[in-house]
């Protein structure tokens, strides 16, 4: 089938699934609901594979005109190129697995059909974001995924204990995302003012043809786009919503808050590479923001005790690494890390979901321990995920991180050195998590222990598939030391079929350097692994209670008090402003001022009313008053004004 038909089908399928489940899902059996939702995802993935097979050039598919005004027109159109189809593969592929997992995970939930409706709707919005051929369609998807994320974070809004907290977390996520969205909107206006179009390809062409378009406003545009990216991809200063977003059901954390939506910011920057390449200043900002985020989040993750919070901060930290890559202009490397991260982070989240399921919804790792015997499949796959993210040799995370580190070394040795700290921290908190959960003694008490059981095959099957991907995902972009031909396949694929990227030659490190870097990184990871094993598995150290923490551990555990700081800096002042405006401007000045005036008029009125004999309504009185005013106006004008 032709590419444009396939693309439309793959886009329409999730929407169709959402419509069917949303309208009649309540009456259908759970298995059918889950089957429909997963089925459309699988078909979508197959379509994506077929398109992927035929992708050799940028193809624009025009749908219809969304908006046509005097000075600009906006089309609903889609763009198929290497970047968009690769992202589509990740979203639909990983999405399908997570849908399968959810059938098991959500089986006891009353809102089963609603959950799958939202999930499918999210996929539709995400695909729109990725496949749009202009910033406007991208913005459609961009806001759309934010709304689905809101709905899914607050999914259990009526829970007796956590209902309010869940809905507050959802609101926080939405508002912080909206701040980013506002940045994107301003960016769109600036782009329109500068280029009079929002189409990616047209902007790239215009820049190529007319160098006079390259001026200071590019910096403004790119900074606005980056603000948008910090919102969606949880970077400093807008990252605090992501850990709170863990209030959503765990498959949601895996799909939206690890594998797909949060990488939208990276996609946006890669998609706009032709703009960012012209703004070295913005690239530097991205580099350092990404770096700082990666460090801060890794630090906070060191002493979190909620299994999902650790993973959430880890996600923030990994996203930071991707932005570091973007800041260095290594766009395809960032996408490579997006890909491997989607595999192992989805795996880790689903694994944690399996653990939480087994633990009767307990998430505190201080109450876990020794789970490896009871949850063999979850344990093994979680171990693979942990090793992959920690950069254990030859697993997928090892290659993608190594690419970033290689570029960093080339960029500046100091950056490389400090990034290594972040990488080391990642290994440290991940191994800590792994050993605390799966090794040692069970600490949750006998009643809880008797309930612990391995999850059903429908949940473990996706874990196994993701584990396989996490092991072999690195082969997508093998460095030159292993093979003479066919290396860096992903980079070549993206470079050759994505607008803008073909011009950017991403240097790959010399084989010798690569070798050295890999050796250093592997040694470090293995040392940390041994340390963590000694500490948590052999010596059976356990995490301290919150009130026993001191020094850096306290800071890490308290998330650097950033929530409190933001509350003090932003939330409180705006609330104060709102109350003060209402109490002073609205009530005191405007209302009482007006009443003062009205009283004055009223007094005059009653004075005049004394002349009248009958009872006149206020309305009539004022009509008369009006007429008097009019007549006097006439007279004055005729007498004195000459026009």
């Amino acid at each position, binding site marked *: 089938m032709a590419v444009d038909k396939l693309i439309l089908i793959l886009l329409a399928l999730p929407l169709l699934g959402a419509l069917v489940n949303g309208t009649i899902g309540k009456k259908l059996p759970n298995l059918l609901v889950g089957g429909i939702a997963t089925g459309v995802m699988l078909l979508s993935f197959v379509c994506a594979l077929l398109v992927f097979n035929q992708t050799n050039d940028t193809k624009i598919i025009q749908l219809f*005109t*969304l*908006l*046509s*005004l*005097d*000075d600009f027109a906006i089309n609903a159109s889609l763009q198929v190129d290497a970047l968009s189809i690769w992202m589509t593969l990740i979203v639909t592929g990983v999405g399908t697995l997570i849908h399968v997992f959810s059938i098991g995970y959500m089986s006891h939930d009353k809102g089963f059909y609603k959950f799958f409706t939202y999930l499918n709707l999210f996929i539709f919005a995400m695909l729109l974001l990725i496949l749009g051929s202009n910033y406007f369609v991208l*913005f*459609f*998807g961009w*806001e*759309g995924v934010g*709304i689905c994320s*809101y709905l899914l974070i*607050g999914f259990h*809004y*009526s*829970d*007796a204990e956590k*209902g*309010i907290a*869940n*809905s507050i977390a959802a*609101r926080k996520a*939405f*508002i912080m995302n*909206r*701040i980013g969205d*506002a940045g994107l*909107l*301003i960016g*769109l*206006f600036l782009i*329109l*003012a500068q280029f009079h179009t929002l189409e990616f390809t047209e902007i790239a062409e215009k820049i190529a043809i007319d160098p006079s378009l390259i001026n200071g406003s590019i910096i403004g545009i790119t900074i606005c786009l980056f603000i948008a990216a910090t919102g969606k991809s949880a970077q400093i200063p807008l990252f605090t919503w992501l850990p709170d977003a863990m209030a959503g059901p765990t498959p949601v954390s895996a799909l939206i808050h690890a594998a797909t939506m949060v990488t939208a910011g990276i996609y946006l920057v890669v998609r706009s590479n032709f703009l960012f390449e012209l703004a070295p200043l913005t690239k530097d900002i991205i580099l350092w923001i990404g770096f700082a985020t990666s460090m801060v989040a890794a630090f906070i993750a060191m002493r979190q005790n909620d299994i999902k919070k650790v993973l959430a901060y880890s996600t923030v930290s990994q996203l930071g690494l991707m932005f570091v890559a973007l800041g260095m202009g290594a766009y395809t490397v960032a996408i490579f890390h997006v890909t491997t991260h989607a595999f192992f982070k989805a795996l880790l989240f689903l694994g944690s979901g399996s653990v939480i399921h087994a633990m009767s919804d307990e998430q505190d790792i201080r109450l876990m321990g020794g789970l490896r015997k009871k949850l063999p499949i979850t344990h093994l796959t979680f171990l693979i995920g942990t090793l992959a993210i920690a950069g254990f040799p030859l697993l997928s995370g090892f290659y993608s991180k190594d690419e970033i580190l290689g570029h960093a070394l080339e960029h500046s040795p100091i950056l490389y050195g400090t990034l290594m700290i972040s990488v080391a921290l990642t290994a440290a908190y991940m191994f800590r998590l792994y050993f605390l959960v799966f090794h040692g003694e069970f600490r949750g008490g006998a009643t809880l222990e008797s309930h612990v059981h391995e999850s059903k095959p429908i949940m473990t099957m996706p874990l196994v598939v993701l584990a396989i991907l996490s092991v072999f995902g690195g082969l997508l972009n093998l460095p030159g030391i292993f093979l003479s031909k066919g290396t860096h396949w992903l980079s070549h694929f993206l470079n050759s079929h994505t607008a803008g990227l073909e011009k950017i030659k991403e240097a790959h490190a010399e084989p010798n350097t690569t070798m050295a870097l890999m050796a250093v990184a592997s040694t470090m990871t293995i040392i940390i692994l041994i340390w963590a094993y000694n500490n948590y598995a052999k010596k059976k150290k356990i995490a301290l209670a919150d009130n026993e923490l001191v020094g850096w551990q306290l800071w890490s555990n308290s998330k650097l008090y950033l929530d409190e700081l933001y509350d003090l800096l932003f939330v409180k002042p*705006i*609330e104060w*402003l*709102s*109350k003060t*405006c*209402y109490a002073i*401007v*609205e009530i005191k000045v*405007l*209302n009482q001022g*007006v*009443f003062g005036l*009205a009283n004055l*008029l009223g007094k005059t009125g009653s004075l005049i009313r004394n002349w009248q004999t009958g009872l006149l309504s*206020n*309305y009539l009185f*004022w009509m008369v008053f*009006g007429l008097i*005013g*009019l007549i006097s*106006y*006439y007279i004055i*004008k005729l007498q004195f004004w000459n*026009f």
Partner: protein
Amino acid sequence: MELLILPLILGLVMLILPSGWCKLVGGLGSLASLGIASYHLMGFDPLTQVVMSSSIDKMAFGLTLNFGYDSLGLVMIMLTNAIIPLILLSNWNRELAGNKLFTALVFFMQLGLLGVFTAQDGIMFYIFWEFTLLPIFLILYWFGAKENNKVLFKFFIYTLVGSLAMLLSFIALGINAQSFAYQDLVNVQLSQKMACWVMSGFLLAFAIKIPLFPFHTWQPATYTSSPMAGTMLLSALMLKMALYGMMKWMLPLTSEGIEVMKWPVIILGAIGIVYGAVIAIKQNDIKTLFAFASISHLGLIAAGIMVFNTAAWSGAIIQIINHSLISIGLFLAADILEKRTGTRKLDELGGIAKIAPRFGFWFAAIVFAALSIPFSAGFIGEFILIKELFSFHVLIGILAVSSLILGAVYMLRSYQLSMFGPPKLTSFQDLTWNETAVFVVLSISILIIGLFSTYIIDYTAPAIRVLTAITPTN
């Protein structure tokens, strides 16, 4: 002409009909007027300028009895005749629905509105503008909260002062033109100074009705003390008269003064956008909250209209329609909450989504539409308006953009506090059929307009081009 006569007849019939009948007849009648409006809408070629349906030239004092419409007026007529059935439908299961006096007043209100949208003569416009005040006043007075005389007084004084100023402006122009016919008034050449004065007169009337900061203080109190249908009439239709008045009358008639008056009005609009939103953030009364939200939304439209170009006006029209639909939905939701729980206070509500899922869903749909999410009409409308304000001045644009964030804060807060969390009540009657129908119609319309806004924009573009092409002379 039948556009105007039908509501008049319906209103009169309501008065003589037995009470049991007026619900049904009123409903069917309003649908008939919607049908007539659609017929006009379909049959109209937007490229023709103004269709005059009747004309009696030069009555006494240079008055002309002219009615007609261009595509802009026709869209407003359509909006009016579509909103009136929705208001009656929202009211269907409430006490007022069977009240003949009330139903008659709604139709008289419709008559006044249609008169405003079809008037082609300044004095006719003024008369109908004033006429709309009577039914709304009586609705508020007879059917509103009993303790609201002071509120009513304020509302009344405010609007009357404004109208008076507008009348003065009309007279000032009329003297010059020796006529009050629309085209004659447009043709009057004014000095810039004079144009500013005349515009100020119009502006006072419109600013109060929109309402523009700082002329808005009548609004929150009036909204909260009036019955649901009254609030809906006010926010969905009466306020739109003022926006229409700005586009059709004020700016074309006094375009000489636009360059001077642009700035202050746009700044007031921008202040209103932020001010309304900031105050809405901490409101505890859900109706007051929606009232301030409305001030914020309308500030954006008013500022956009003052930018005075075709693109901004296209956005304004989309947003006018969108705001009408949304305010019907929001005030219906607020009324449902108030009627079934006995309170409008957010801190006393909570957890309703769980016990009334249908209401939870549709209320959420309207809240999201109010947040201008993609695929909703507001998305397109706000995008154009904010873009035009942005091109006008970056700072104004940024103020307008901030409403996006603040809007999310107060809208989600109001929804979350009322609907989420563990239920505080044991029972809450879910939506009745008529309420569901209203929400469904609103949501579908918002979705359709969001996707196919081009049709409305193209339809109104010829009229807008004429109205905005009246270039300032100085």
